């Protein structure tokens, strides 16, 4: 019984024939690429000024960022806000609310504060360049490793996010892969109907079960491909995060 009943690709065929997985894939790639790019941009825009000791009000701003890690309005006020902003059923709902992660801002700030030499800034100032030019020409090229770490953290978070889509999106053609998977694996409601044990269902189960396994495999493939290349950066992020800034 422990030996599999033969090799079959029926599950994969059924999954690929159904367009929703492909749509989900494309949507997820869109949300992840656009969301990660924008998130990194605003994270640097906040973290770099915070790393400067001459920023007026820097301490207060830093406290404001840290406080969001301890206390939050929660889903219901956020949902009302999203409704007031007309972001319900909008693709932006997948990107905007998560754009600034407090933890990510803190690790980026710590990195900038410790690895961008002050002399470099002074030299640039002598050349008559402003702060923005300094960030683009000096800070970003010197911070490739932290940018990769941020890309990983934001990217994985957006790719794995199903809950925002679940509460904010209504059109199936906007669903990210994870929500499509959730519907295939657990059905439409959060309360999966209790499994009834009648034996006639077992035959029918076989295909639907192999469909479920196929979905799980397909959703893990991008991670498995990327993992060996990115693996060393994961640890780096943890280590930067552990330095008290």
């Amino acid at each position, binding site marked *: 019984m422990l030996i599999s009943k033969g090799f079959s690709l029926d599950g994969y065929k059924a999954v690929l024939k159904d367009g929703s997985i492909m749509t989900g894939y494309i949507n997820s790639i869109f949300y992840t690429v656009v969301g990660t790019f924008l998130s990194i941009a605003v994270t640097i825009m906040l973290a770099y000024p915070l790393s400067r000791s001459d920023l007026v009000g820097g301490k207060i701003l830093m406290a404001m960022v840290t406080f969001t890690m301890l206390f939050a309005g929660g889903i219901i006020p956020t*949902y009302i806000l999203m409704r007031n902003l007309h972001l319900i059923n909008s693709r932006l709902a997948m990107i905007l609310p998560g754009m600034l992660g407090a933890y990510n801002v803190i690790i980026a700030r710590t990195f900038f504060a410790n690895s961008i030499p002050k002399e470099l800034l002074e030299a640039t100032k002598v050349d008559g360049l402003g702060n923005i030019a300094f960030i683009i020409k000096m800070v970003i090229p010197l911070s490739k490793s932290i940018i990769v770490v941020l890309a990983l953290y934001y990217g994985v978070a957006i790719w794995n996010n199903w809950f925002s889509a679940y509460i904010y999106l209504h059109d199936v053609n906007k669903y990210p892969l994870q929500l499509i998977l959730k519907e295939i694996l657990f059905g439409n409601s959060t309360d999966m109907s209790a499994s009834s044990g009648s034996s006639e269902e077992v035959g029918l189960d076989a295909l639907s079960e192999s469909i479920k396994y196929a979905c799980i495999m397909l959703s893990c493939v991008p991670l498995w491909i990327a993992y060996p290349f990115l693996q060393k950066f994961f640890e780096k992020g943890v280590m930067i995060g552990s330095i008290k800034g």
Partner: protein
Amino acid sequence: MKRTLDLQSNIHTKPLKKRILENWDLYLLLIIPVALLLIFSYYPMFGLQIAFRKFNASGGIWGSPWVGLDNFKRLFTTNKIVQVFINTIRISGYQILVEPIVTVTFALMLNAVFSSRYKRLVQTISYMPHFISTVVMVGILRQILNNRIGIYAIVCEQLGINAVDVWSLPEAFPHLFVWSIIWQNLGWNSIIYIAALSSVELELYEAAEIDGASRFKRLLYIDFPTILPTFAVLFILKVGSMMSIGYEQVLLMQTPLNLMYSEIISTYSYKIALEQSSDYSLGTAISLFNSVINLVLIYIANKLSKKISGIGLW
């Protein structure tokens, strides 16, 4: 003397206006991120006031009528809240007690392995599950532990035991939840301990060995003190997030039959407001109650940790 010092410091501290103008472009950069922070993090905090109002769509957050503590009275007159509260404490307490012990044990075990190549391999594989999404993780778990077609069913059949449906067994829920979290985060959470342990100089172990310290003694007197500060800080953070255990995962693992143990404060609040009755005010009252306990817990944990180990978050 004092006067001259004051004069000197005045030369160094420029007037506020000048300091801002000097780096005006830095403040320009901050406009978008600060706006995002205010809108998506701080504005919802003001939204919490609907816990003290009777929310209606036309009045919104600022215009719905005030009702004082009515929502909280409604909340505490139902028996449900007690059960939900106990469930939350049961699951998170279980997690807080077990997870750090398992993680530290894993890190110490891995640290004791001498072959560094093997060590790296184990570590790399061990934190891969961290990046699997909650949906897929719970999906895999449901498939494996399915009592008709999962590996669990097959094993039980081979052993001749009747396979109980663990998803309809309320008592099984805390174990399923906590151990699946441990499985997913074991490797990831251990990275920081392993890094701390690798900072111990080899000479220290050698010296201890010469002095006749057994392996266990070395563990007790070298390894433990090394990871203690990290452990303390992480433990405070864990206690502080005690009331905010992953409701997304809980939602996915709930079945109508295990709700007696699996309904926690955050899922209950979500369902009241957005799934069942659209009672935004009551739902918000529950989640505010939750957040306040959370804040108190993190404050106490930080105080205690400072007293015991001298290490705190602030």
